[in-house]
């Protein structure tokens, strides 16, 4: 028997939880036998900004209470879709170096098509809706909060 506890989606400190733990939590879902595919999205720190400036590091700030409510809403709304068994969104906050993991989205779906759609929807929604902000710190010493 798998003893991994159900893991809540939401805001966590950097590195507080691993992708493996999230996948294990999805595999521990009581409805796991209905799942035929597990889809994973990992957002990481990119070296260049959208404007092409060279990024040195990144800071993520969050309004945890509001962000956690919205993340739960996104997960619950996606789980109501046909064939979606489980959705987990974990967003980290804190100070990050290049290539560090910022966010994980894990979807367990009956079939791959629903899973691909759900993971795209989940990413589109969290980027637009959750109370999280990122600041790019550039190698020239300047910084910019992204909106």
């Amino acid at each position: 028997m798998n003893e991994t506890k159900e893991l809540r989606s939401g805001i966590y400190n950097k590195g507080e939880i691993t992708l493996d733990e999230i996948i294990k939590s999805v595999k521990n879902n009581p409805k796991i036998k209905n799942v035929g595919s597990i889809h994973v999205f990992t957002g990481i720190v990119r070296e260049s900004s959208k404007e092409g400036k060279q990024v040195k590091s990144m800071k993520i700030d969050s309004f945890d209470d509001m962000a956690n409510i919205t993340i739960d809403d996104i997960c619950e709304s996606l789980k109501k879709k046909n064939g979606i068994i489980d959705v987990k969104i974990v967003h980290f906050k804190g100070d990050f170096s290049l290539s560090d993991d910022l966010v994980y989205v894990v979807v367990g779906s009956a079939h791959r098509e629903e899973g691909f759609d759900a993971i795209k929807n989940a990413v589109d929604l969290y980027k637009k809706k959750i109370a999280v902000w990122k600041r790019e710190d550039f190698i020239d010493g300047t910084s910019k909060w992204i909106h």
Partner: protein
Amino acid sequence: MLVEVLYFAEFKDITKKDTEKFDLSSKNLKELIDLLIKKYDPMLELLLDKKNESLSNNISVIVNNKPIHGQDVLSIFLNEGDKIALLLPVSGG
């Protein structure tokens, strides 16, 4: 009447604080905005529109974890102990 302001992103950088308490006499949001701008110059550009007449369209007002909607948001009344957050558009990672 004391209220608490929660700072995020640029606001945290400007104030170097996570939260701050303000003593209001008129009990409305406009007084709080005026106090913030008076204390922290860079907040003027972030909080108000170009004519400095109303709250910027970029700002979302949250009171006690609930979004406040409506055109005349500056006139909303606040209560003792309210927690107010002024949020700029989000940018998830």
